[in-house]
């Protein structure tokens, strides 16, 4: 078997296993949908009469608040799934399954990338399921937007998955996961343009909050998705998302490198 065939076959097997586990854990899809739908149906529906969204790019006209938050909620699905993939890595490490993967005769970086790709696949399934239900509730992207948003979703999912991968190398035990997530998911989500336009945050909140939103890579994932959904490319968002994703992946690769990384320095039993 060729080396490329081996690498692709292994990546497909990793993705199939993750997909299989996802399908079997029915509550996972349900919670992946319920979370953003609650925001859309309760939070956004309630606040759309309070918040007005002026005409800002990429919108050509006034949009309802529900339409405004739709890309942010799609990014929220990616964020949660990225962290869920990280949890699944920590679980696999505790169960020993990660040792099985890491002792496969393939480069370590490829095995990690395969895990990342599997997470991206699951993210896409969940995002499109969410967008489908939102469309049934009459909150829609432009028709072509469902297609043009795909590359932005993939790139953002890669970035968030890579951040999750990096986190999984730093979390020692499953029990520590929930605590660690509270320091990642909620600040990332709330300190971003997912729920409010940045200019509004700048106007209403203290300057530090605005600047935190500006340096939060999740803000750029949201904007990349928002612009792509309307057929536009936001170059700064693309650069930040791609750059952050690459940096996080390289750091995760280093952390998982037995010769140099965190797991190589670990106490017995961790790797």
């Amino acid at each position, binding site marked *: *078997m*060729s*080396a*490329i*065939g*081996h*690498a692709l*076959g*292994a990546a*497909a*097997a*990793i993705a*199939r*296993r993750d997909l*299989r*586990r996802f399908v*079997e854990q029915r509550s996972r899809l349900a919670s992946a949908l319920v979370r953003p739908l609650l925001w859309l149906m309760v939070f956004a529906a309630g606040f759309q009469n309070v918040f007005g969204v002026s005409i800002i790019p990429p919108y050509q006209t006034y949009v309802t608040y529900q339409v405004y938050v739709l890309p942010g909620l799609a990014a929220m699905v990616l964020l949660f799934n990225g962290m869920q993939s990280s949890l699944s890595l920590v679980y696999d490490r505790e*169960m*020993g*399954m990660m*040792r*099985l*993967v*890491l*002792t*496969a*005769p*393939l*480069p*370590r970086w*490829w095995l990690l990338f395969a895990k990342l790709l599997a997470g991206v696949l699951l993210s896409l399934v969940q995002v499109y399921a969410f967008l489908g239900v939102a469309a049934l509730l009459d909150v829609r992207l432009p028709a072509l937007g469902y297609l043009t948003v795909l590359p932005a979703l993939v790139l953002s999912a890669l970035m968030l998955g890579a951040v999750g991968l990096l986190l999984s190398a730093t979390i020692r035990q499953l029990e520590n996961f929930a605590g660690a997530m509270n320091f990642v998911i909620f600040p990332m989500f709330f300190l971003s343009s997912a729920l409010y336009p940045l200019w509004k945050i700048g106007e209403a909140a203290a300057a530090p909050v605005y600047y935190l939103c500006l340096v939060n890579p999740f803000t750029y994932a949201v904007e990349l998705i928002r612009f792509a959904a309307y057929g536009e490319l936001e170059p700064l968002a693309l650069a930040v998302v791609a750059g952050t994703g690459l940096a996080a992946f390289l750091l995760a690769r280093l952390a998982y490198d*037995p*010769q*140099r990384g965190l*797991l*190589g320095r*670990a*106490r*017995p039993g961790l*790797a």
Partner: protein
Amino acid sequence: MGDLVSLPRRGALPEASGLSGGAVLEVAAVTRHYGARKALDGVSLQVGAGEMVALLGPNGAGKTTLFRVIEGLIPADGGRATVAGADVAAEPVRALAALGIVFQEATLDPDLSVGENLSYYAALRGVPRKERRAAVADALSRLGLTDRLRSRARELSGGLRRRVELARALIGGPALLLLDEPTDALDPGSRIALRGEIDRLRHLTGCGVLWATHLVEEVGQADRVVILDQGRVVATGAPADVVAASGRGTLTEAFLALTGGAGS
């Protein structure tokens, strides 16, 4: 993907691809620290093709640490380990391609069937998709587990799980089997059965076996025994030679004397 290497075609369990007549594992002066504690202190050992070597040591002697170094999961601080001629640190992909591993802890996915677990492993080892079904069937038949193909891993007893893991480790025709206390948590009957299986399989496939254990009675079938204590090799040789050199009557007595009476 510059550092990917091409693996030999390994579909339906060819015989072991070890260096015929030569060492399939060479560990030379390996040291490893956990903080200030020295877990391995200049450990050296060899396993030849078709040879079974028992790595005997009390709990905490450094057996699992040594296995992790050989598996490339943690680096050695000094010395080197080579598997089938490939340095574990410098050429991990080549070294891992020659290894079949039964880990100390259970590593079957409980939610997958036995067949799915083995097929997953076969894909990771580079068995082509078309050949996976045959490779899995072959591995299971060698352990008499054909009827378990569709059983969920979580439904299996501890002994059966171990046998499935052993079958899995054979996929790809490894030159060296690393068995990290594979009989741990098994009842006496299952232990004896598993020991018999491993002995039969190494004669059948010609692969080398390094078997870590803290149970002296498991050393009986080994060609050689390496006794590890506090990270150091304190005795090595054929079991009878180790007993003779120690001046004791049995291997258990020799083991207890060499390890300060800390044996199981």
